[in-house]
């Protein structure tokens, strides 16, 4: 252990005493991490509830859903969803899930809680920025949800908010006025929050590592959060100004995204000179890295969880890190594959197609390293490792459909169909959720000092694993048959025979969604009445298991920072007393080297 004065340049803050400073406007990264987790939990149940309503409507159009008019009397007169209300719910489902769940939970929540501890720091270097980061994000969520109650409701333009539908105002449809402005304010706020968070993550990783913690000794989860924060810094920095320009098109009479001579309701619109494709370029320049912002933390988390449960390090620590990095770099070179049929120059389509195909190489390396590391391991099956293994299965299933969407010629048939919806739900939705679940079951004992119930955890896993396959695999079949996405009903002749498939999916979605209530119950029940957690329940090696208590004290390590002597994953160590050696154990061992 070495003295914390080593980090004297960091703005230290004393332990708070008041309730507000301790639990609400806290500067403690652990409290902020839990706040982010709480926000994601609230958001995911809102998002899932919206998806239930959507799925019911898709299976049985004009179905009466008792009480629906309470949500919106205009959107559901007589408790039947209107076409525009379907689109509004869809847009909110996607926005909430992508931003406030898939970015918030694996990156902001777990990253905030565990990154400083895993590098051996007492906190982040800019705790006030960190607090602001959460509260600005929270404000973004409040603004987004408030659009349900303002004017003619939330925007119906989809989470991608393509202009000029999103930019010409309420003349284009319900929610396209105040709904879009609130959406854009919410997302701009979210971007500011994540930019502040990313700055903290990067600085903590580079500047706050404890003695002996070289970059290569950082656990894979920390590497994943670090690389993600670099992506966040550049991606959110593009989306935020794009949102501001969109707001200006609404409130300041500008025409960034609206060309001249558009005629809506027989009226020529008072705009000229804008470019609709500009929005698409700006959006997807953010949008594609965002996919990796959602999934890379999950990759880091499940690697970390799997290693402890395989009782061995990965075949190559560094190869995994290089692959995370390659994904991050390539993610900026592929965004045009969302725009193959957009009217963009067809030569660009080919230029964007090759990097998209090449991104399968680091993805394949990741899968092969995970599989190769399972070989010869001493795998422990528990809820955390089941979700981690489930992540790999989902990532493979969602990943292979990327082969199709990377090619412009095939995209002619699959663009804007359910094939795309199936692809991204599996690869960045479900896989990322599995990462969140693996992290939750693994780290809960550290965060709350209690164990989660394993039996309930396994029931949750089985229903979720089988259920998500039942939901999202058929999406691919629908897409192959030409089922267009973002339709509130299937009146097109050739889509009508596909309705039974939609009904199957709806039933699966309701059951899988209900299974998440088991998780919620387990979370809340275990928080208060779970078995007290042992000091190091998984016999894991990284620094979060070296704190003097669970949850860790205010300054993480009780006044003395740990000194790191080993690589992060010293399992299966020859000549050691156990089968593992903690990172901060001064025990002399022959380091378990990988072949990387």
């Amino acid at each position, binding site marked *: 252990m070495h003295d914390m004065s080593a980090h004297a340049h960091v703005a230290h803050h004393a332990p708070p005493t008041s309730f507000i400073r301790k639990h609400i406007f806290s500067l403690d990264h652990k409290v902020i991490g839990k706040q982010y987790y709480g926000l994601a939990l609230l958001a995911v149940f809102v998002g899932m509830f919206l998806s239930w309503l959507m799925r019911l409507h898709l299976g049985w159009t004009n179905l009466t859903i008792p009480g629906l008019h309470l949500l919106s009397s205009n959107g559901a007169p007589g408790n039947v969803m209107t*076409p525009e209300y379907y689109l509004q719910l869809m847009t909110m489902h996607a926005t909430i899930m992508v931003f406030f769940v898939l970015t918030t939970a694996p990156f902001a929540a777990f990253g905030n809680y565990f990154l400083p501890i895993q590098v051996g720091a007492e906190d982040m270097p800019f705790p006030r920025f960190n607090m602001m980061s959460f509260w600005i994000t929270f404000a973004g969520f409040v603004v987004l949800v408030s659009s349900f109650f303002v004017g003619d409701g939330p925007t119906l333009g989809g989470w991608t908010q393509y202009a000029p539908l999103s930019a010409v105002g309420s003349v284009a449809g319900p929610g396209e006025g105040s709904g879009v402005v609130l959406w854009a304010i919410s997302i701009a706020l979210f971007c500011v929050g994540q930019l502040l968070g990313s700055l903290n993550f990067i600085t903590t990783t580079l500047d706050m590592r404890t003695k002996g913690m070289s970059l290569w000794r950082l656990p894979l989860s920390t590497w994943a959060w670090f690389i993600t924060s670099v992506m966040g810094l550049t991606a959110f920095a593009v989306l935020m100004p794009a949102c501001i320009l969109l707001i200006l098109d609404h409130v300041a009479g500008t025409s960034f995204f609206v060309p001249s001579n*558009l005629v809506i309701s*027989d009226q020529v619109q008072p705009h000229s000179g804008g470019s609709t494709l500009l929005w698409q370029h700006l959006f997807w320049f953010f949008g594609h890295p965002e996919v990796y912002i959602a999934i890379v933390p999950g990759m880091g988390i499940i690697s970390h969880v799997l290693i402890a449960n395989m009782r061995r390090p990965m075949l190559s620590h560094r*190869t995994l890190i290089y692959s995370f990095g390659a994904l991050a770099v390539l993610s900026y070179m592929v965004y045009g594959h969302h725009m193959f049929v*957009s009217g963009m120059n067809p030569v660009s389509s080919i230029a964007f197609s090759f990097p998209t195909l090449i991104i399968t190489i680091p993805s394949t390396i990741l899968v092969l390293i995970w599989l190769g590391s399972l070989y010869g391991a001493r795998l422990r099956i528990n809820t955390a490792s089941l979700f981690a293994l489930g992540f790999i299965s989902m990532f493979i299933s969602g990943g292979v459909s990327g082969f199709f969407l990377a090619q412009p*010629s*095939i995209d002619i048939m699959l663009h804007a169909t359910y094939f795309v919806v199936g692809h991204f739900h599996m690869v960045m939705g479900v896989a990322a959720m599995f990462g969140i679940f693996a992290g939750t079951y693994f780290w809960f004992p550290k965060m709350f000092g209690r164990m989660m119930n394993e039996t309930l955890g396994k029931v949750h896993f089985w229903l979720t694993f089988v259920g998500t396959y039942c939901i999202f695999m058929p999406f691919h079949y629908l897409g192959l048959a030409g089922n267009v996405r973002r*339709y509130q009903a299937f009146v*097109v002749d050739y889509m009508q025979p596909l309705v039974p498939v939609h009904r199957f999916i709806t039933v699966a979605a309701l059951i899988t969604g209900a299974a998440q209530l088991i998780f919620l119950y387990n979370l809340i029940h275990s928080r208060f009445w779970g078995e007290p957690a042992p000091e190091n329940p998984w016999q894991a090696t990284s620094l979060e298991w070296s704190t003097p208590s669970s949850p860790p004290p205010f300054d993480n390590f009780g006044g003395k920072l740990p000194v790191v002597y080993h690589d992060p994953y010293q399992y299966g160590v020859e000549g050691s007393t156990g089968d593992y050696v903690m990172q901060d154990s001064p025990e002399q061992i022959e380091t378990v080297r990988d072949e990387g």
Partner: protein
Amino acid sequence: MAKIFAVTIIVIAILSAIPILRHTWWMAPDISTHGAPIDEQMSETMAEAGISFLASQILLAIFIWKFSQSKPGEKIRSFPGGAMTMVIGAFLLVGTEVLALGAFGAKAWASIYFTAPAPNAMPIQVQAGQFAFYFRYPGPDGKFGPLHPDMISEASQNVYGLDIDHDPDAKDDIVTAEMAVPANREIHLLMHAKDVGHSFFVPELRVQQDFVPGLDLSIHFTATKVGRYEIVCTQLCGLGHYNMRTYLSVLSQQDFEDWLKKQAASQ
């Protein structure tokens, strides 16, 4: 539990593959002259993706089954060849595979998009607006009259904003709500949007192209099989998006001429 998990993964993988192998849900039969390379590319990619999918899932299942049974104290073993084999394998196998897919895919794309329409291709204009497509045929003079956005009026049925009183080229233009084309004749489709983004998708024709407000785009194709097909919008355009559709009739030359005459008479 590990064994049940392994079996579940394999069962899911096989069940997922069956509808693909049986083509239970599949692309509608191609009726275009340019669609064959797309279909071929789809089949090639399906084969490669399918093999990767099944092989990885089965391997995952086998390893879960086999390596969750180790006794405590049993020595950890490493995959023969280690990580380097994985990396080289990924670069060689997957790298070659995706480059091949990319190259052949690019060729298929280029055959559609990098070729100009034949000089004698029949021009047809399509305008997309919330929530309908309108088509315009140039009439006997072969010329389209200019558009006047300020004259667009759904109420007076002037959906294109034509000034037939002053523009001689517009006088004989034929505007229709459905599209008809003669079989085996190349069509040069001139696309523009009236209000927001839309898309033109005919699965059988292997055509999908967005309308971009502010940009005039064009595509060209030849339909080979007489029949009636649906044109649908795939770009979210507002509350009536799901119902923005019309029909494409592929007719014999004679039937097409008769149809066009009938449309001209009803203008």
